[in-house]
């Protein structure tokens, strides 16, 4: 019954799909696999050339732009190949029986469950797509997912970094995704990988906007608040880069804390639909707002199974401050200052930067059976894992970064690196002019020095730095292959080059 349909794409290449009469159905599209399953062809269900020619042509116009100029703008730049894994971009356009279809690469293997749910996959989700919702809800995280699928807290930071970076790339090309949600971002917390999909909803400036408002949980307040207005009304808010920023902030909050930042205990209306609209829209309030506490989650409403082993829904036990100062600041900006003032929302680049800096604050939990395994050092003299409650025992070196001002003095950067055994220093720590992003050459991504706790001492081994200086010991050079002991107050210059950083060691002692 299944037959292979062969078409010619707008690129001139052959595009094939297997019509089995039973496509996978997305919100807007019917999706068929190619014969070798390396790509899919997705047809827009509600657009028909024979029914509404103008709508169809508008869509075709927008898609054409996405698969040609917009795609080339991202992938044909320096470092363009980096985006292949992060942005699942449609690359060809076909027409069949009055419907418009796009060819999109099939998702990579790690975005499908290899184990699935607990107890020998009692839900039968092995082999299914890793919809982000599985990882964003306390119920699924605590109760349903098998431990092999969950990943550790470090991996969620990396997942968020990939999402922020992919979003930043779209935004820097002037494009809004318009429907960022856990349905449209694939995540693999076992590896930290993520990919943004459904890029056919991209808002191309100057073209007709797509027919979506977004997905519940991620729709920006101003879009919900104006949805009753006609599409052509100038006060109606449509998806844009600013609404993407809201969705991105919600997603990062949900992957790190496994709860929704706006779903609290406040009741706005007795009708569930109106209540939902108000609590996500015009009346939305951050559940952890510092002064307006009206929307704090009510623990009495939470099922016990959502609270164990990790009490994610309980903001008093796991406040968002556990994400560290940089992310806390951005959450405030996104959910307090910018919630109803889109211009104040942090950009995707802000998130990327804060996540990179947060990685430097992360350290392994000393409790070997801690489920989350990593946590952020909260600049406390008695650090303790917020997830399992285990206190840090022993010496904990904290490196404070300083950078030369134009006047030639070193000034503090509000950037620290937490040391643990096996922790690495990378080029982007050494020099402030090097940023960890897609433009780095593979060689520059390798560690240049590393830390170890050896014979009861913390040491730094120089692997690749050709001007590492012990400033506290009259600028003594530390050659490649040798090591230096890390002690309280020690000052080390990582590079003599322009932009080279100075580190000052602070040793926290907890016995």
């Amino acid at each position, binding site marked *: 019954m299944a037959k292979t349909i062969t078409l010619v794409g707008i690129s001139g290449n052959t595009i094939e799909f297997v019509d089995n009469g039973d496509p996978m159905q997305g919100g807007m599209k019917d999706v068929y696999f190619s014969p070798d399953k390396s790509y899919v062809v997705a047809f827009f269900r509600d657009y028909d050339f024979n029914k509404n020619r103008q709508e169809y042509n508008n869509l075709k116009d927008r898609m054409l732009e996405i698969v040609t100029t917009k795609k080339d703008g991202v992938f044909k730049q320096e470092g363009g190949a980096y985006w292949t894994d992060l942005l699942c971009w449609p690359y060809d356009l076909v027409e069949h029986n009055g419907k418009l279809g796009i060819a999109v690469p099939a998702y990579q293997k790690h975005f499908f469950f290899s184990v699935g749910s607990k107890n020998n996959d009692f839900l*039968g989700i092995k082999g299914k797509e890793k919809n982000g919702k599985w990882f964003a809800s306390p119920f699924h995280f605590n109760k349903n997912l098998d431990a092999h699928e969950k990943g550790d807290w470090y991996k969620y930071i990396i997942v968020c970094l990939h999402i922020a970076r992919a979003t930043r790339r779209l935004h820097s090309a002037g494009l809004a995704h318009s429907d960022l949600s856990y*349905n449209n971002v694939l995540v693999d917390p076992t590896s930290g990988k993520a990919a943004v999909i459904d890029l056919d909803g991209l808002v191309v400036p100057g073209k007709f906007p797509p027919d979506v408002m977004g997905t519940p949980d991620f729709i920006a307040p101003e879009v919900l608040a104006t949805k009753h207005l006609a599409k052509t009304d100038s006060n109606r808010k449509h998806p844009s880069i600013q609404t993407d920023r809201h969705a991105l902030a919600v997603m990062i909050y949900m992957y790190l804390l496994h709860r929704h930042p706006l779903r609290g205990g406040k009741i706005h209306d007795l009708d569930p639909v109106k209540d939902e609209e108000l609590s996500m829209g015009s009346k939305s309030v951050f559940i952890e707002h510092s002064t307006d506490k009206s929307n704090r989650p009510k623990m009495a409403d939470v099922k016990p199974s959502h609270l164990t082993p990790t009490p994610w829904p309980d903001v008093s036990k796991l406040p968002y401050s556990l994400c560290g100062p940089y992310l806390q600041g951005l959450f405030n900006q996104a959910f307090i200052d910018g919630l109803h003032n889109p211009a104040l929302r942090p950009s995707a680049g802000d998130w990327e930067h804060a996540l990179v800096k947060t990685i430097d604050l992360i350290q392994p939990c000393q409790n070997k059976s801690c489920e989350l395994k990593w946590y952020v050092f909260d600049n406390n003299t008695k650090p303790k894992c917020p997830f399992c409650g285990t206190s840090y025992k022993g010496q904990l070196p904290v490196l404070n970064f300083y950078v030369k001002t134009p006047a030639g003095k070193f000034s503090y950067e509000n950037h620290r690196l937490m040391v643990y055994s096996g922790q690495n220093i990378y080029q982007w720590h050494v020099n402030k002019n090097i940023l960890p992003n897609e433009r780095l050459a593979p060689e520059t991504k390798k560690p240049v020095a590393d830390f170890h706790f050896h014979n009861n001492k913390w040491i730094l081994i120089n692997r690749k730095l050709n001007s590492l200086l012990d400033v506290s010991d009259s600028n003594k050079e530390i050659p490649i292959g040798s090591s230096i002991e890390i002690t309280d107050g020690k000052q080390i210059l990582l590079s003599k080059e322009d932009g080279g950083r100075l580190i000052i060691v602070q040793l926290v002692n907890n016995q």
Partner: protein
Amino acid sequence: MVRRLPVYLLLDTSGSMKGEPIESVKVGLEAMVSSLRKDPFALESVHLSIITFDREVKDILPLTELENLTLPDIITPESGPTHLGMALELLYERCNKEFIRGSSTQKGDWKPLLFIMTDGKPSDMAKYQEFIPKIQSLGFGSIVACAAGPKSNSESLKLLTENVVHLDTTDSSTFSHFFKWVSASVSIGNRSQGSGDNNELPPPPPDVHPVI
């Protein structure tokens, strides 16, 4: 904090459903539950209840969360009337007891969904008509009635809801498509939302015809 989405299924088990039709319904139900459990949104919110009706009305599955749900067996008598009116009566009583309505201190349920499947027409017309306004007053998000097979009567179902679909046959393939559509209708709340007026239900598959 997660609202429940109550889903009620009223299934005709009168004599004419015996054999392939009811077996197909069971297979369709199993596939529906299994697919809803694979949907992280549905698994978190959907609560399912099944009432069967023939001469008797049976509450074979009280409102149960998907995670703890085991489908009960469904038995059909040799012959007998189709007491849909009595089924609505039981449903009315149950809903009044079970719904969690929003209050100033508690978030209530999502608007519940009701799916009715029958291959005939109500034998207890007076009771059926008596309970139509009562059921309508309960505030269902949608009520879908399915007239299955050639002997089914769409007209009487039209009295209850404007969403009436017709199945030409009562075989396994048609029921499988029908329950797939039901499960898609249950999951739709978490999909991308269009900027126009929201269509409450996804379009039915080709062998499930909307009755206009």
